[in-house]
């Protein structure tokens, strides 16, 4: 199925991509980079490919329901959202606009994963590159906890303005 998308598919993909992330509603699914594909498989029948950020991310169900709703409202009666794992999602898939919105929302965006070394088993490695406080811009920040309100975030504190903030971890 390596055919170029039709104008209708492009329109529907833009619609599905405009759905806000259920956990971080300031960014859209397109900006988060989790929408992998949309295909018109028959009249009024659409198949959508969605990839989870984390394997256990519970938001995937809300995302699927929201995509189905927005496409139903646009006159597509049959919508099937499929979850695809490969290639694995990475924080590099978050768009520049998505990063800007995250920072504006008070979440330090992930650093590019190219800056990470490969360690022993191919997982992400925490290089001590400075993470900027989204409130005051200081790079003098310290890690409080590796896991914050969701698995994809870490909790940090800014030593300049003393505010705690979430950091979207590199994956």
């Amino acid at each position, binding site marked *: 199925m390596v055919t170029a998308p039709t104008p209708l598919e492009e329109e529907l993909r833009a619609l599905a991509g405009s759905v806000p992330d259920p956990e971080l509603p300031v960014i859209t699914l397109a900006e988060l980079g989790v929408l992998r594909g949309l295909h018109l498989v028959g009249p009024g029948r659409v198949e959508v490919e969605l990839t989870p950020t984390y394997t256990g*991310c519970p938001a995937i169900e809300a995302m699927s329901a929201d995509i189905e709703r927005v496409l139903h409202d646009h006159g597509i009666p049959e919508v099937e959202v499929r979850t695809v*794992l*490969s290639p*694995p999602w990475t924080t590099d898939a978050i768009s520049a606009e998505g990063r800007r919105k995250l920072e504006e929302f008070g979440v330090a965006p992930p650093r590019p994963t190219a800056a990470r070394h490969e360690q022993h*088993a*191919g*997982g*992400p490695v925490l290089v001590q590159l400075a993470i900027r406080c989204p409130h005051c811009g200081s790079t003098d920040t310290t890690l409080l*906890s590796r*896991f914050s309100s969701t698995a994809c975030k870490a909790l940090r504190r800014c030593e300049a303005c003393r505010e705690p903030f979430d950091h979207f971890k590199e994956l």
Partner: protein
Amino acid sequence: MTGAPVSTVPLSAALALGDDALVLSHRLGEWAGHAPVLEEEVALANIALDLLGQARTLLSLAGDEDELAYLREERAFRNVQLVEQPNGDFAHTIARQLYFATYQELLYGQLAAGDGPFAPLAAKAVKEVSYHRDHAEHWTLRLGDGTEESHRRMRAGLDDLWRFTGELFEPVDGLDVDWTALRDGWLTLVTKTVDQATLALPTGPQLGAWTAGAGRQGIHTEPFGRMIAEMQHLHRSHPGATW
């Protein structure tokens, strides 16, 4: 959840990997409401959630995830005995995390590098598990190189669980893994962390006479029966119940 057709998936391997993730997820979930600080409450629950997501994908490769999780008897579970061990105190849980997350990261790393049916899941999960290992390593350092009391407890946790670590390296049918390399890599990493934490690696045998590969054959330790009774109770009492 993935595209691999069920027929190409080695059943025993899907159950081994899926049950490891499911059972450890449940044990970590038991910390909810009991962790020493709020940040750890959240961290352990997040690690449990990652593992639950992995378990769902893996068990779905083997059959119906709910039937497999909630309706199998104890002897049908294929998880290693390490993951079913009770939480104990916080140091004990961290010791279990250190042993298991280091193993799981290396195992998934090998599976991700291959082209078998588990490669897509492993390539995704290895990145998550690397944060679990990092979490366990930092706590091992902090507790081992902390107070006299935290050092004592961390050491006790490592000692108590050591005899369940040999089973991790028993070959699993259907997994294309270099088990010797896995064991060597694991030993190097765990030794490095333990040394840095001013602790010493336990010296006893890594296998009890009766525990060699036993969990993978469906033979489990006593606390496991009580754990799955709790885990399966709701589903068995109210079949088809929804939230």
